[in-house]
């Protein structure tokens, strides 16, 4: 591992933060659990830049449980790009990537990673891991970067036909093989007992988080979507750490307390909104406008769904494979639609807002099917906001707000 390089990267990043950072004060940090969550992410982020850390870059669904069992620091470049966007650091990073030949039509999370690597802001990885889940681009970018860094690339091939009988064993075998190879390469012990322990922590966090999601069905809603949506990144990134159990437990207790005291996330909740996909990370104003101005509370975000069953620590690889294969958004659109339909009922939803991320062919392409199906079966209005989660150059606050206003009009009329 080139220790010096990682120091250089940290200094580059630090220089950028000092020079350009535009601090956004989030109006959504109302819970103690949220502060604990930020501090855990911050700690992991800093450790990824330390010279003696073994760091694995992981794309969205790579299970960190395996990494924690090997004492390897997970680093989620897509998540870090959203953090950069939050501090308005991505304009220059994206331009650098585009100058390098990355098309502006590609996903800005991935373009952002390429730009950050070119500018040496990212910590040198020891491993890069991607899966075949969701988009094709992230694995392609990770593979290309593994060549640049001359580091091992692991690819977890998750069959798109997740229900086929061979799928669980097929994925489990790959996970086990990967863990063995990583242990060997990083001189760590391949310790299945330690993996079982991380699975136990992961389960505990999962169960609290599932209870949190259940509490969020309460009317009035006890948590703002603007605060909840950023928990989504934790589901695969930090599950497996004991700290995460504590965070989920705290979150559960705080929401329970709010509900017991009859405190709603906003006073006079008017509408209940289901949020699909991610959010624009460079602004908090959109959620604030929807939730506080229009009193249309985002009662649930699909990205926060606990779609997987509790894992069996005695079969750690099989359980992790099942977790991957049970992802609601992976597979044909019908599976996702079924989840959406159940959220509409469980959360007593009046309307759906989808933020369709430009550049993502995976998440946004089936919007019409969703519209047809949900309207036809459930008669629920949907607002699709076309935008970009990371690239703010074409974002028009005024236009988006006008569309939100029109949508709220529809919801108001429906309620008579």
């Amino acid at each position: 591992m080139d220790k010096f390089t990682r120091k250089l990267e940290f200094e580059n990043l630090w220089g950028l933060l000092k020079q350009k950072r535009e601090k956004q004060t989030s109006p959504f940090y109302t819970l103690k659990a949220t502060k604990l969550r930020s501090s855990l992410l911050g700690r992991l982020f800093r450790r990824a830049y330390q010279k003696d850390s073994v760091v694995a870059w992981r794309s969205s669904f790579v299970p960190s449980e395996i990494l924690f069992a090997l004492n390897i620091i997970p680093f989620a470049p897509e998540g870090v790009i959203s953090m950069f966007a939050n501090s308005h650091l991505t304009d220059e990073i994206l331009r650098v990537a585009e100058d390098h030949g990355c098309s502006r039509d590609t996903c800005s999370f991935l373009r952002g990673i390429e730009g950050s690597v070119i500018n040496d802001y990212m910590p040198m990885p020891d491993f890069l891991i991607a899966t075949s889940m969701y988009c094709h681009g992230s694995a392609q970018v990770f593979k290309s970067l593994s060549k640049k860094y001359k580091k091992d690339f692991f690819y977890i091939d998750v069959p798109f036909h997740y229900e086929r009988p061979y799928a669980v064993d097929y994925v489990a075998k790959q996970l086990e093989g990967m863990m063995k190879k990583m242990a060997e390469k990083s001189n760590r012990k391949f310790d299945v007992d330690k993996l079982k322990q991380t699975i136990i922590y992961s389960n505990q966090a999962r169960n609290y988080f599932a209870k949190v999601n259940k509490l969020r069905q309460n009317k009035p809603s006890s948590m703002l979507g603007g605060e909840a949506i950023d928990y989504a990144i934790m589901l695969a990134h930090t599950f497996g750490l004991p700290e995460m159990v504590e965070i989920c437990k705290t979150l559960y207790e705080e929401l329970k307390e709010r509900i017991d005291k009859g405190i709603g996330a906003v006073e006079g909740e008017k509408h209940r909104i289901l949020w699909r996909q991610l959010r624009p990370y460079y602004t908090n104003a959109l959620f604030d406008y929807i939730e506080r101005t229009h009193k249309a509370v985002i009662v649930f975000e699909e990205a926060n769904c606990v779609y997987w069953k509790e894992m069996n620590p005695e079969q750690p690889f099989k359980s992790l494979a099942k977790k991957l294969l049970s992802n609601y958004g992976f597979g044909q659109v019908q599976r996702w639609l079924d989840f959406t339909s159940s959220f509409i009922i469980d959360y007593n939803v009046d309307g759906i807002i989808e933020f369709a991320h430009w550049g993502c062919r995976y998440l946004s392409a089936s919007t019409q099917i969703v519209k047809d199906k949900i309207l036809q079966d459930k008669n629920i209005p949907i607002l699709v906001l076309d935008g970009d989660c990371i690239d703010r150059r074409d974002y028009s606050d005024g236009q988006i707000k006008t569309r939100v206003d029109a949508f709220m009009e529809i919801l108001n009329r429906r309620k008579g």
Partner: protein
Amino acid sequence: MKYAYFLKGWEEEMLETTVLAQNESSIEEFIRNVKKRNVQLLANKTAPIMGWCNTYVPEEIILAAGIIPYRIMGAPGPLILSKTYLCGNICGNVQSLLECALRGDYKFLDGMIIGASTDATKKLFDSWLRYAGTPFNHLFDIPKFVHEGVYLHYRESINSLSEEIEAHFGNKITESSLKEAISTCNKTRTLLTILSNLRKNEKPPVSSQKMLEICKLAMISDKKFFNNELESLLSKMKIANIKSSAYRILLTGSFQDQPWLLESIEENNALVVCEDLCTGLRYYIGLVDEDVEPIEAITKRYIEKKPPSATMISFDQRADFIFKLINEFKVDGVIYHMLKFDDPYLFEFPDMREFLESKSVPMLRIETEYTTSAMGQIKTRLQAFMETLRFTKYRKIKANKNGQVYQKIRI
């Protein structure tokens, strides 16, 4: 060795320019015959017809079930219906496939197999199923990265496809029908390769536009008839020993089945001598081993032997293959064509540019919509590229253990 006579003694033959005209008329006759047969085939269907898209879908399985494989393609023209069912930032080829299906162009299909090679094709399947559905619909899963385990994945995809076809059409896929299908497909591939290799000659006897048309016909015709006709065409083809000053171009990148890009390139004293495309070499290079258990052999062909697309996340293999073609076809420059929103190629491009730069091979990047778009601008860029080739002609000068090395020679 049966075709070796094509490759022998060309230099000795003093052929007149009329040879080129004779070749052209033989090619025209061949195309006419195959098209005529296709019209008959659609008019009097004797077997079901199965649409497919993506070169990782094994045609052998379809053929072995007594079904005619038919590669569906888009068509030039505006995208009207598809825009309603797929979002606008999906590659135009995929949009166009759906457009054609929605307006009824593919009503004659008895089934459709879509290869799950990209995000766009997976989403196409969702829309196809709901809005365009054929009596039989199948999403064929394709691994995207080659490691030891993926053979199992591909085999499982073949098995599911076979089971579903057998259940729906009631046709049994037997070992002998599979072997026969493999041999038929191999023959098509061999003949197309021979035809394409004729373009290694200074004055190619077959143009890129015709090569594209023939390759497309191979994908939609009764293969046995096609093979017989192509074999007879090859026996008539002759090589003209004529010098050519045209720049020799390799075209690589996104799916392209329309001739307009080739035409635009060749308007500029250039010849596209080789197409690393899904309607080119990526369709016909790589044979299925006929001496091995059929499913294993098919799996090996599609995973290992077929030139990979960018969807396969195997950049080194792709780069090596392209460099080999550059040497074999004496290529002066590479045109890298990307369809707007076609992620695998959009993401691959920076690496390919770096690779070709490291080998001092000139490259031009062109990004277009699926149908002709901004032609004026493209033509200007093509002209400028040919200008650079005029001043910097590349010649093979020495070989090292990694293969041929090119060096700039100013002429």
